[in-house]
């Protein structure tokens, strides 16, 4: 069964702090995505990770992929309030044409 798990499910952090969100998946994948979702809104693409060791950075967010461990991380550096949202990882399996989402991590950044 294809499973994608994230932890933590909920993260409350102070501005200026660093933290990492983890995404584990059960079966070898073709590629991995990170999305951001604001309340009541759609899914905004943040990163696409294609290969082992891939690392991408945009502002205070950095995503990495370890295909051998079936693990991706989303690292938050010096958090600011604007980063408050729910973050999802999603794994694409081309042989089954499925894009499976993780459980989501709700991030709240407070002053």
């Amino acid at each position, binding site marked *: 069964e294809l499973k994608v798990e994230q932890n933590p499910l909920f993260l409350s952090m102070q501005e200026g702090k660093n933290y990492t969100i983890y995404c584990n998946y059960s079966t070898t994948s*073709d*590629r991995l*995505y990170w*999305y951001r979702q604001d309340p009541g*809104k*759609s*899914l905004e*693409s943040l990163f*696409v990770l*294609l*290969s082992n060791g891939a690392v991408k950075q945009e502002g205070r967010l950095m995503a990495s992929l370890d295909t051998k461990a079936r693990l991706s991380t989303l690292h938050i550096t010096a958090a600011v309030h604007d980063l408050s949202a729910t973050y*999802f990882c*999603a794994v*694409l399996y*081309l042989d*089954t*044409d*499925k*894009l*499976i*989402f*993780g*459980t*989501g991590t709700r991030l709240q950044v407070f002053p």
Partner: protein
Amino acid sequence: EPEVTQTPSHQVTQMGQEVILRCVPISNHLYFYWYRQILGQKVEFLVSFYNNEISEKSEIFDDQFSVERPDGSNFTLKIRSTKLEDSAMYFCASCYPGGSGSSDTEAFFGQGTRLTVV
């Protein structure tokens, strides 16, 4: 910038009625998806569509659901007889997977249709 467009943004329907949710994927994309998200919960896969046919569907996608690509541009999700538990946000997505390591690999999502069944 190309985008996935969904209509309507909000649909209210009575239980037992049929609804059709519409999506216009990005024009050169090959894979199309429908997802649903019950308020505050995870994004659930419903169905994927490739080469004018369903390629994969989930347990949620039972006989009450169907998808069509009637004219080569629109991609629709029909729910034949809506139930209260069908109330959710429905997202359409499209993707051009490209080859291994290709940069054309993003899956783009529409803004969603909020379906409320009363």
